[in-house]
């Protein structure tokens, strides 16, 4: 019977261990942010104008995170519509416009100094090591978002689906290479 109890206990322990480590990650993230904003005042003197102040880094990273979340939320809503038999084109149009608008803002979301060194983020340091490649992929995303927005406005469902698949491909190309697996 001991073996049976062990069999039952093992999964529970592994879940507990998993959620425990997630909680501590979140706490670490918060700790990082507060340390960053305190040390920002000290850092400005020596790195004047050359480096982003850490307070700004935190603000941009937050904006980036919220922006990506909003893009994802819209993409999910659109994906659901397009997978169904009669897509609600109002949802598709609204989401497409919002994604296109946020995609233009994304140009300012990745200044140097907003990587994992500045706090909790899924942005990999490779972004700043392969800047040219990253910029190409970001540019492709912006192009795909604009093309999808145009298709959404046309109301032509097959065209919308084709452009949406291309947009997904552009998101994925960048995420596969430059986003760390995040558990939040």
């Amino acid at each position, binding site marked *: 019977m001991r073996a049976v109890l062990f069999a039952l206990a093992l*999964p529970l322990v*592994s879940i507990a261990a998993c959620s425990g480590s997630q909680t501590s990650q979140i706490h670490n993230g918060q700790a990082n942010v507060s340390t960053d904003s305190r040390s920002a005042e000290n850092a400005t003197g020596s790195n004047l104008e050359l480096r982003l102040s850490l307070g700004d880094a935190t603000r941009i990273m937050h904006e980036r995170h919220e922006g990506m979340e909003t893009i*994802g939320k819209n993409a*999910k809503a659109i*994906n659901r519509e397009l997978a169904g038999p009669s897509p609600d084109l109002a949802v598709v149009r609204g989401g497409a416009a919002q994604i296109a608008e946020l995609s233009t803002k994304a140009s300012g979301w990745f200044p140097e100094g907003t990587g994992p060194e500045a706090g909790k983020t899924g942005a990999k340091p490779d972004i700043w090591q392969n800047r040219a490649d990253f910029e190409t992929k970001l540019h492709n995303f912006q192009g795909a978002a604009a093309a999808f927005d145009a298709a959404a406005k046309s109301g032509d469902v097959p065209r919308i689906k084709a452009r949406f698949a291309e947009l997904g491909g552009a998101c994925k190309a960048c995420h596969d290479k430059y986003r760390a697996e995040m558990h939040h």
Partner: protein
Amino acid sequence: MQGVPRQISCGDAPLSVEGGRSQLVWDLPVRLFHWLLAALIVFSWWSVHHHHTDWHIWSGCAILTLLIFRILWGFFGSSTSRFTGFVRGPRAVGAYLRGEWFGIGHNPLGALSVLALLAAVAVQVALGLVAQDEDGIYMGPLARLVTSDQSDKARALHSAWFNVLLGLIVLHLAAIAFYKVRGIGLTRAMISGKTDLGANLPPMRAGKWWAALICLAIAIAITRWVIAGAPHVAS
């Protein structure tokens, strides 16, 4: 001890008894199910960690087919694959642990492991079916039956539940290693289907090949219906 048959009562399927006859205990459907499931679980894990979410979803659908097949085969298959043939109560588990159980196929303790593994895989498949990825690119075939927020929660649970599955797999492998150390090899029997049985044990009653084909056809039909988004149930 020469000439005296070793009665080893703790061992999943095969009671290896020196000088016993080599006999079929696991039929082909059970063995194919087992190895395909093992391979697809590894592939599912690998594909999702290497950004092949589309392959991951197809792999999950294939696992769904296997699961449905195995459940059907658990009612219409060979004697060692039928649930009524191996699922026993706590008293039988106790008897087995005291060395008082004799038979072929899953022993009463191993049966609990089989049920736990099947249930854990079924939960994992069900969560995957209604999940969606975090970017709005991929959806499980039944994701539209729930809300977007519920699909996100299903993804989180799908990812956490893998640890439960992994725990059971580790336990499964540890049990095989434990029996191996005690001189009872289980792996070869799951490959060849055969093991040495004691003289007085009843042999496996084989299932019908056409019953296996019907079970497979039903499993594929249900999977296709699920992939299509479960029409007529989904509004």
